[in-house]
Each structure stands twice: as C-alpha cells, then as structure tokens.
C-alpha cells in the first residue's frame, strides 16, 4: 500500500559502517535510515526482494 518510485539507492558509510541509504524517491533525494518500520526503508527492502531495485555499495 506504500508504493514509491525509487530511481536510485546507495548506502552511505561512515567509519566503514553503513549508516543509511541515500535514495531518490519520487524525484527527491532522501537519507533513509536502516530501520524497519520506516516506510521508505520498508519499500526499498520490498523492491530489493522483488528484484526491481539494487542498493549500490557506498563510495
């Protein structure tokens, strides 16, 4: 019920740990926490599981 247009997703790392996902959702760049219950994170995970989205590694 929370479908979104996610056109890019990439982990952001600090001190070698991934701390969030930088994602472009509905045309807006967002800092999405790695937190189940956050609707953007949950949708990213749904689309990854569906094979329609890949989260790029951090730079």
């Amino acid at each position, binding site marked *: *019920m*929370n*479908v*979104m*247009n996610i056109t890019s997703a990439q982990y*952001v790392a*600090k001190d070698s740990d991934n*701390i*969030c996902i*930088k994602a472009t959702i*509905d*045309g*807006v*760049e*967002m*800092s*999405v*926490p790695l*937190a189940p*219950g*956050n*609707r*953007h*994170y949950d949708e990213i995970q749904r689309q990854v599981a569906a094979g329609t989205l890949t989260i790029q590694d951090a730079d």
Partner: protein
Amino acid sequence: MSRARDFADLAGAADAGGITGKNVAINGAMQVNQRGDQSTSAGSNTYFVDRFNVYIQATAAANLTQSTDVPSGQGFAYSAKIDVTTADTSVGASDLGLFRQVFEGQNVQQLAYGTSSAKKLTLSFWVKSSKTGIHIIEFYNSASTARQQSQSYTISAADTWEYKTITIDGDTATAIDNTANAEFYVQWVLYAGSNYTSGTLNTSWNNVTDANRYVGQVNFFDSTSNNMFITGVQLEVGEQATPFDHSESYGETLAKCQRYYWQVAGSGLLVGQGFYFSSSEVDCIVNFPQTMRATPTFTSSNNSGDFGFMNNSDNFDTWTAQQFFDGSRVNVYTISGVSGTAGYSGYIRMLNSTSKIQFDAEL
C-alpha cells in the same frame, strides 16, 4: 436537536466507549498543514494536510491544498482540497486514486478486533464536490491475511457541503496487529479501474478480493473541472456519530502530527548546536519537538548557502546524511563544502527562504 436528544446520544456514545478523546483520526479539521501545498506523484502517496495523503496509481493528477472553503457554521476553518489537474477518462483496469488516513495498530486496539467484543466504528465527515454520485469508503486491516470492507455514500448535489456518517460492525475474526506501523486504513476512493470494480461491493469484513472493493465508484478524475473538499473527519468507537470534537487545541493537534512529520523551513531559523567533527565535517544535533513514531527519513534542501555554521561564517548547501537517531533527536552531518577546526562549536542556521530540513516518519 433537542437537549434530551444530545444527552441520549452522549449516553449511547459513552456506552460504546466513545467519549474520551473520541476522535481516533488526527487533524480531522485539517488545521495542521506543515508541508504546504502539494501535487500528486503518479504511483506514490503524497502527504499534504498533516496525516492525510492521496495515492494515485495512474496518469491522473491533482493539486492538494489546504482550503478555507468550509461548511458554514460548523466551526471549521480549513478543509482538504483535491483539485484535478490531469484527467483520466480512459480508466485502466489497475488505475486507482485514494484519499486516506493510515493508523498505527497500537492506536486502534480499543476496537477489540479479532474478539467477540469487536466494536462498531463510526466515521463522520463533511464533503463538497463537483462530482456527484456514488462514492466508496474502504476500511482496511493490513493483517497478514488482509481484511477489508467498503461502504458507499452519495454526493447528492454538486458543489454543496454535505454531512456523511458511516457505521461499520467490528471484525470478530481478525485482530489488528498491535504495532507502531501502518495497520489500519480509512480510504476515500476517488476512482478505480475494473480490477477493483468488477465484482459485488463487499460491505462486511472479509478477506480482500480486489474486484469487490470499489464497485460503483464514480470517476472523480474524469474532468479537470472536478474538485473535492473534505473536513470534519471524525472516527469514533460506537455506532453514534457525535458532533465533531473541537475541544482539541491547535497545539495538541500539531503535537500529534509531529510524531509523524516535522520540518524546519525558511530563512533565519535554527537547525541546532553544531561542531566540527573534523576539519571537513560539520555535525549537528537536531532535537525533535515530539518523539517520532519511527526513525525518520531525512531530507535536506540543496541550494547555494542554504545553511551556515555561525561562528565561522562557513556556509554550505546541504546535509550529507543522518545517524544516531534515538527517538527524539538525531545527528545530521555534512562533508561537503565546509572547512574549520575540529572541535570548534557554533550554532547552525537556515540562511535562505529555500532552506529546509524534513523528518518523515509517516505511515
């Protein structure tokens, strides 16, 4: 209405557990509008007046605004307005448009669904639309085996405020999961394709069959001349619609809304206390006015000099990311375009009218 009738109604509502804090819906008077005007995004939810969003799965589009068009003499100052900007006259089978509020499961446990004591629920609201005819409202429980029921109401006269009430039975079969997540939906249907309309309208709690969800719904999106206003949304336990509860102050409603969304926008406003974590990184602790429902998504504006580290005249365009959320605060940081001495501290301000930070824990 007579005083005796008022007391009888109140007694009935009290018996049903519907007096204290009776409105389960948040911001039903459409007073709080932190985001400002919005436009729909195809295939997505678009939040506008706080706690309400429009979902459109198609090419149709609308402007979503807070309006001052309200039913006369009812004590409302605002309504939510949906104004069609792109029509959809050739409705595809999967096309769908919804106006809705989504509820945390833990906020509707009083309905006692999944037990023999499941409570009736009454929705009341004011609506005005240029599109007359049959409209559908859906009540949806997103349990592992989702449940739903739909009820119809009729907009009888174009461009005229009408008061509607709908009462549904409780669902004795399936509980609403007791979580802080999206578990219960109240959805005003705007239009729907044949995937949702080809069966028989399901008017009691059942497992979801898409074809039975929105049967009979008119196409609100059949003309760019169409618009709809809604206010006075009240969802209360029991079978009696009582007058809208105006006793809640703006501040109380705002606080409820800030559990789900909060922003700071505009020139001269404070972001928080910051410091140079290193010579090329500025960190800032942002304190939220309310404990948020979940770790929020952070969005920052990104324009030349939107933010400034004030003891060093070190202006920068945007924030890189967030970390260390603890419910009521978070650390945001930037590693782009800043330069200073590690350990130096100062306050961080918004410098432009375009400056904005947003924290979104919506459902």
